[in-house]
């Protein structure tokens, strides 16, 4: 069992919960980037502190160029969105 669990692509925007925009939901649930190069990924430290991390990893070289707590990154982001008057 691995200490870290891959939890998918980072930075995806969940549509407004009340939204009925099918295309937006389809994109959120099914579409994933699969770049050859820099990729923002979510990894959970499942065998440890349980936090999710946003990891920027190069899929060609496996070099990790940045790591941040997802919760902090997410809060900063949603604060930004609120700032623009969007609903969080």
């Amino acid at each position, binding site marked *: 069992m691995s200490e870290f669990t891959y*939890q998918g692509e980072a930075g995806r925007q969940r549509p407004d919960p009340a939204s009925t925009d099918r295309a937006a*939901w389809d994109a959120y649930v099914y579409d994933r980037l699969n770049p050859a190069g820099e990729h923002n990924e979510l990894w*959970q430290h499942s065998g440890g502190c349980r936090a999710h991390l946003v990891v920027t990893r190069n899929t060609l*070289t496996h070099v990790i160029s940045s790591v941040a707590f997802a919760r902090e990154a997410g*809060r900063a982001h949603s604060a930004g969105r609120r700032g623009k008057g969007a609903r969080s």
Partner: protein
Amino acid sequence: MSPRRTADSGRIDRSRQIRFSFDGANYSGHPGDTLASALLASGVSLFGRSFKYHRPRGVMTAGIDEPNALVTVLKGDGREPNIPATMLEIYDGLTVVSQNRYPSLAFDVGAVNGLAGKLFSAGFYYKTFMGPVFGPLKGTRFWMFCEWFIRRAAGLGRAGYAADTARYERVNAFCDVLVVGAGPAGLMAARAAAEQGRRVILADLDTRLGGSANWSDETIDGMAATDWVASAIADLSGRDNVRLLPRTTVWGYYDNNTLAALERVTDHKAKPETGEPRHRSWTIRAGSVVLATGALERPLVFPGNDRPGVMLAAAAERYAVEFGVLAGERAVLFTNNDRAYRSAAALARAGARIATIVDVRDTVSAAARRLASECGAELLAGRAVVATDGRRQLSGIAVRAFDARSGTVSGDARNLAADCLLVSGGWSPALHLASQAGARPRWDSGLQAFLPPEPTQNWIAAGAVAGAYSTAEVLRQGLETGRMAAGSADEDDGGLPLAADDELDPNPAPVFEIRADGKAFVDHQHDVTADDVRLAYREGFVSVEHLKRYTTLGMATDQGKTSNVPGMAIMAAAVGKPIEEVGTTRFRPPFAPVSLGSLAAERHGHLKPERLTPMHDWHVANGATMFTAGLWFRPQIYGLPGETIEQAYVREAKAVRDGVGIVDVSTLGKIAVQGPDAAEFLDRVYTNMFSTLAVGKARYGLMLREDGFAYDDGTTWRLGETEFLMTTTTVNAGKVMQNLEYCLDVVWPDLKVHLTSVTDEWAGAALSGPKARQVLEACVTGTAVDDATLPFMGIVRGEIDGVPVTICRLSFSGELAYEVYCGAGHGTHVWETLMEAGELFGIVAYGLEALGTLRIEKGHVTGAEIDGRTTARDLHLDWMLSKKKPFIGSAMMDRDGMTGPGRLELVGVVSLDGRPLNGGAHIVESSNPAAPRDSIGHVTSVCYSPALRKYISLALVEDGKARLGTRAFVSDPVRKRFGPVELVSHHFFDPEGKRLHG
């Protein structure tokens, strides 16, 4: 003393004898000997038979690169095949047998393969055994006929059938600097890094650290190289920040400077100490790595180059100087480079006679000539060996004139007597790890070798692996790389030991093959000849990767350590391109074979983790048959003597319906959901509403996945305004927890909610049956448990024999039922108290089978029905889908295809022929058992229902809701079951739920 032992050289301890056996014959050697050195010293030249042609083979190298001398070690009932004799340290009682010979090594019937040479040429298997059948003797059918004979004749060692009883373990290590290879460069690097205060690990695959310094006869820092090694090791061992790992092969270079190594801890001992493993698998995370892995000498390819007695020059040097063994009494050196003259000179000093030196170059440097005359050898320049003679041991060679530029031989052959032919075709840096963690290796046309590539990870190469061959240069590189790896800018040369600069030309002549008549082997281990390589080219295999797979060159246990570069050079010559354009294969882990045991290590056998409930020991002591659910152990039944499983669970389930039963539900996932936004969070993840739940009440909840399919169910209890206890199914507990954590971290980072797994905090016992309340009344204090105080889905707190308990009235069996939770440490005590209180009411402990039966009778779904393809509506759980709020899955759950006709819907199934139903059986409409077709669904959960006195099941059936009351058939051809069934409501028993409210 054997005639092959030198007078006094070597690291062996001549004062002690070690006895061992090889192919049933007894031999002796000394501590410090390998099997190869001990057998050579005893005059043994024949070590094994070759892979395809069963040619006699001797020992070619003195180390990990050995392709020929592979043996099988017998230990107890176990057998460990394919161990290089060159790496096997002898111990008293060591029992070894040779491989790939029948009936014996000296007389081998398979050697006739050698006569049928063409038969086994490159691509033999593909050509002969694949493809269409032409007549009786071709194609796959022919393969089936021949397989037994070929598998017996061709191959390496045979694995044993006995379980491996050896112990293995894994270790994690962290260091600032890992130095791989403890030759002069590695020792120097380790010391330089250690002096900077860094944590250093120095690993070497050999028993004795020191590498080439153990046999180079050089002077370092004014002393014998071996003494310098001893002082360096003494210095390193005295430091707290250094760990020395001899007998440790670093075999894999993975991401983020994580390296894998195998330590052979007790392979050299007759019996390990208590607790000592056979192998230890190291995972080393290193800040930086110094690769000082040295270089491997490569052979020349010429006819008869595989005869026992043909040996790499440096290997013979090593046997003489390090092990005190002469590989032969009358030796000839065949070389394309200067360095090999040093080997000849070392052998001469050790007492061997070097009769002749055959050099493919027509001009030889003065320094090399001096060495030749030092050995008293006749020098034949511009010549090459074109044939060898002898049966199981070399007796002579034939030499002809050779033009190194055109690669052609000419003139008459001259025959020379020799029992040992030292061969050197130059050196190949051991860049395997560098290749694993680097770009493509680059070709150096001077050294005629691939040098380490540009690093893609944090490593530096030092010494021979980096192409440095003079000891002075090797030491300087060691010092510099050690400091660099330690992050030091120190440039002071003070610590650099003195060593003479080498006058010999490091560059070999670009000669890899002597083309003449006869089989000339490139890959000795897989019997791939130079002609096979050319044949592969003619048949269109021009890529090195294809060449490798078609001819199998470079495969097998030695991974082509001696054959890759010659093979590529021959390919390049055939293609007519320079070697660098033909390319090189990328090396992958492992560098050398790794025991599977060391990788499995502590996950094996009794150390596999078992997850036990607080009442586990009670269950076992009271006759439970335990059943695994993931890691959990749960009681399946508490069988009475002579009972079948079905009889036991039917009895247990009946006891519940008739009176009262108790079941361990501690395995249910339990998650503490705490925080000011806990209720809001639950509203978002459950399909139904939890913010309206009163404190002290529980509610059944359903979760969907984002894509709208059903995910998991369970009850959640509101213990306080901001505190909930969520339960999940046993199997989904981990997944649900992870999913909820994902939601909080990623989807709703603003919610103030904490999640904590409290599964293990609480022991849970479910008490079910019409008399359940009476049992509680008999033992619970501090609270009433009557219907008013504890209504359906109510929660109370009280005590049972002084232990605080939380009791929730909820039911999955359809009976009046309660879940009683207490601190896990009190679980057994509370359970026993409940059993005692229940005795009067005929309480019965029941297991998973009865639990399943009770819930199937009530039509409650679980993992078999919530299978990732069903929706809430399919499962009749529409009533749980709130219309007042969005929740996870609400946007996707009703899209096209998720509703409407054609869905598989939950139904009940009753067996009409009185026979059991099987999970996974199809439901069909056709009544013809011979041609069952057009499945309309499948059976998910089955039981014998004591309440209905029938075999029943739940099933998912196409448009099942519309089929209630109709007949169909179960079809289960695999288990030969066909029979009529009726499709009914999944609420088999007490559909109005009267019993629940007792």
